[in-house]
Structures are given as C-alpha cells and as structure tokens.
C-alpha cells in the first residue's frame, strides 16, 4: 500500500522532490561536520604537530630554546643503530608475514574448497573469534607457554626427565610466534574471502580439459586468489613493522624494534622530537608499502 502511494506521489510531484533534494544538500555537509572536527583533532592536528616536533633539536623544556632543523633525521640516517633497528623491524615483518601466509593460505584454501556448509561457517567463526579478543592478552598467553618452566617445559620434563629446557621466552623466535598467532586470523580471513568467490565451473572446466590438480591450483586458484593474499600480506606486514607491545613482552632484551624504541622516546627517555622523527620514518615505510601494493589494492579500496 505504501509503495503505491510512493509511486503515485513521486510521479506527480517531480518538481517538489527536486526542491527537497536541493534544500537538503547543505544538510549533507552538516551531517559530516562532527566527523570532520573529530578527525581534525585526533588525526590532522596531531600529525602536523608531530611533524613540527620532529624538526626540533631538543625537547622544549627548561631555558634553552630548541631550534628547528634536521638533527633528529640526521641521527636516524647517520647512526648504524637506527639502520640496524629498521632492518630488524622489516625482517620481523617479513618473517611473520611469510609464516602467516604459509600457515594461513592452505587453511583458507581447505576452508573454502573442501569444507562444506555448516562446518565451514562454524570453523570460520572459530578462527575469527580470538581476533576480537585483546591482542595484549593473547601475547600474555604466550608467556605462559614459552617461558622456562612454562607449560611446554613442564610437559617435556614430565615425559623426558632431564631434558634441556625448551623455554624460548625473551628471544626473537618468541616474538615471531606471538605475532604470527596474532595476525593469522586476519590472513585466513582475507584469503578465504577471495578463494570463496572463485567460480567452481572454472575449476571444473580446467579439470575437464585435463589439467592436473597442481595445474588447476597454479593456473586458476592461485592467480584468482592473489588479491586476497596480498591484502592479508599488507594487513599483517604494516602493523608488525610498527609493533612494540609484543616485542616488549615476548622479546625481553632481544625485543628492541623500531616500535619499542619509539615507545621509549615517549615514555622513558622523554626525547619526543626523536620519537616524532622515528614515527615519521615508520610512517614513510608504511606509505612505501602501500604505494607498492596500490595497483593490487585499488579494486579492494573501492569497495570500502
């Protein structure tokens, strides 16, 4: 009934409809104003302020006035320590991303192509579920497992008394394991979404034409799911390069990364200008990654 009224009215009064639309144009702008203001205060102004800070020679405290210059950036590029640090963070990103891909892609493939119906939904839900629980708590959970005299150690000693300790907490592998655990659901989800959309008839056609399973995978499934894999790679690599909490908790002394050194500048050393410059170097790395992946991501971004 309502539908009929609608059609009659909108047909008979097109002029009025246009007037309503025009009048409401400014309403549209008005609706976005709070979001603009909010993001100005929390994103734009802070980023501008941090950029300014990164050019200061020292913390603006006490009597000595800081001068503007490239001192902090010079520190970053001249000292071997920071090059080493950046290298370490990038390497961590590569290790975690590769592990996530190697574990996650087959899992997504199996989920999308073998598991059927209700089981598929249930397992997908189980995989995504912990992803919404606190990353800090998941990292904390690994300290229980990995520490000397932790669960792994105690189980091992129960089975094999006198075996050497397997506690690898506070080491680089511990950081890699913890971060892989954190980002695996992301990777499985993005791969699964692109694998799931592959048309079954393409695969059947390939098989009918005599392609082996390996050929079907290499020539049909892999190329078609590559965008999803790439999204997963980006979504893992970017946050891992900037991680500080996981390396701190699982890495101990071995845990120094670009992220933890930035954290130190703000919470321990109080050298905010250096911290700001390091944050911008991290941002530059992130931007380069996005730029490199842009052609592959472009179609995805349109959807969002």
């Amino acid at each position, binding site marked *: 009934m309502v539908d009929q009224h609608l059609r009659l009215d909108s047909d008979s*009064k097109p002029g009025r409809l246009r007037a309503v639309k025009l009048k409401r144009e400014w309403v549209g702008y008005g609706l976005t104003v709070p979001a603009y203001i909010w993001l100005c205060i929390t994103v734009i102004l802070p980023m501008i*302020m941090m950029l300014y800070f990164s050019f200061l020679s020292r913390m603006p405290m006490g009597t000595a006035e800081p001068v503007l210059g490239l001192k902090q950036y010079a520190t970053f590029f001249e000292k071997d320590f920071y090059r080493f640090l950046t290298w370490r963070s990038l390497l961590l990103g590569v290790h975690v991303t590769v592990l996530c891909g190697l*574990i996650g892609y087959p899992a997504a493939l199996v989920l999308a192509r073998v598991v059927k119906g209700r089981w598929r939904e249930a397992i997908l839900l189980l995989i995504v579920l912990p992803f919404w629980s606190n990353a800090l708590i998941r990292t904390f959970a690994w300290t229980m497992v990995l520490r000397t005299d932790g669960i792994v150690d105690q189980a091992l000693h129960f089975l094999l008394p006198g075996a050497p300790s397997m506690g690898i907490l506070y080491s680089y592998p511990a950081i890699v394991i913890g971060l892989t*655990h954190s980002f*695996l659901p992301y990777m499985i989800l993005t791969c699964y979404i692109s694998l*799931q959309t592959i048309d079954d008839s393409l695969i059947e056609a390939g098989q009918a034409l005599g392609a082996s399973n390996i050929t079907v995978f290499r020539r049909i499934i892999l190329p078609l799911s590559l965008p999803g894999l790439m999204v997963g790679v980006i979504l893992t690599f*970017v946050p891992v390069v900037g991680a500080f909490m996981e390396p701190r908790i699982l890495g101990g002394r071995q845990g120094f990364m670009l992220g933890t050194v930035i954290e130190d500048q703000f919470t321990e050393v109080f050298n905010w200008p250096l911290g700001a410059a390091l*944050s911008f170097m991290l941002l530059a790395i992130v931007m380069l990654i996005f730029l490199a992946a842009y052609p592959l991501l472009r179609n995805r971004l349109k959807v969002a």
Partner: protein
Amino acid sequence: MPYVRPLVSYGYLGTVLVFIYLPILIMMAMGFNQSSSYELPFHFDLVWYEHLSANEVLWRAGRNSVLLALASSAVSSVIGTMAALAFARYRLRGQVVLQLLLFPPMAMPWLILATAMLIFFYYSGIGRGLHAMLLAHVALSLPYVIIVVGARLRSFGQDLEEAAATLGADPWQTFFRVTLPMIAPGVAAAALFAFGISFDQFVTSYFLSPPGVSTLPVEIYASIRKGFTPEINAISTIIIIVSMLLLAVVSRFYRFGGTQ
C-alpha cells in the same frame, strides 16, 4: 574438490585451531591454578579470583574501561551514522577528503597516531586522561561505524525516504520514522563494534594515560612488565569472555566474513 583428501584437510584445520586456541586456554586454566608461580600439577582453586575481587586498582581500571567503552560507543555511533548517512544519501563535493581522513585510523600503526596525539594533546591543553582516550577511541571506531552503517544504508534504496518526504514528512520525521528503523540493526552492530574496539584498545590508552588513571589493558601491560601473579590470568579470562559474548551478539546483527 577431490584433490585434497578430507581427512588431511580437517586434520590441518584442526591443527591450526589448536595453535590459535591452546595458548589462550592454557592462560585461562592457569588462572584457576593454586600456584602463584604457575607450577604444575594443577590444583583447582579460585584464590586468584578472590584476590582479584579485592584488587581496587584493577577494579578502578575496569570501571574506567567500561565507562570509556560506553561513551566511545555512543559518540562514535551517532557521529558515524551521521557521516554514513551523508555519504549514502547525498552527493557531496569533497567527500573524498573525509574518506581519506578515515583511512589513517585503520591503516596506520596505532603507535604513530597515539604518539602524535600525545604530543598534540599535551601541548594544546587538552591534556591526558579519560577524555583524551575518549577522543582517540572514537577516532579509531569511526571508520568501522561508517563502513557497517553505510553498508546497511546502501542495501536499502532511497525510495521509502523519498516517499515519506513527498507525503509531507519533514526530514526529522523521515529520519526517525523511516530511516532509523531500517538501519537500526546496522547501528546496533556498529555500536557493539565500537564498544569492543574501545574496550580492547591498548596502544592509544597507554600513551594518553596520566599516572594514576588507567584502563584494564594499560594496567595489565604494566603488571606484565613489573612481574605478575595469576590474578592477571583471572582478569584476562574475564575480558576474553566479555569480548566473546559481545561478538556473539554482534554476529546476530551483522554477518561478517563475506562482508568485510
């Protein structure tokens, strides 16, 4: 697909699920273990939950977390729904600018945004504290609210709203009697999302918390670094259960998986 045997497939998925869940389950179990140094064999005891109930610092942090999440959820779902409405129903010049602005909170490492906010809030007089955390949490939730509500808005046409308008409803009536009831499940899901994002948020809270004011994740991080007892396992278990319940409710409103 016949080319992977189901047994191997399910076995592999099972292994992955064990990898994902085992540490969390072990962590939870140790909260019920009597030993303060996580020693086995396992003796079931609720002593750490009793300690927890007497721990005022954690209680205060917990109260802060909940209040903050409620406020952040309310603010971001109102502002976000407004923006989503504008995107879906109006052709606005310059809307790309806002869409670009929504990108950093999702795509940049939070560490960068958090440190930038710390500098700006500190020197602009906004200062640190729960209000500063609220500013940050809402900014982080906004993109998700706009995506979720926007998807819901686009799934309905504009017809009903135009009908209401031509039948003489003013914009307020149109919104409250037509649009809002249509998108209500989307807004509810977005609000729960936003609650979860704020409740679990650690990075921005950590940098924006002045001494003496903290949220649960900030308090937990401090404890982990200082040395901790199974009390932390107990509170972590509670947080995980709350988050899971929240997700169960969200998934009633919003199907994820295919939609992200």
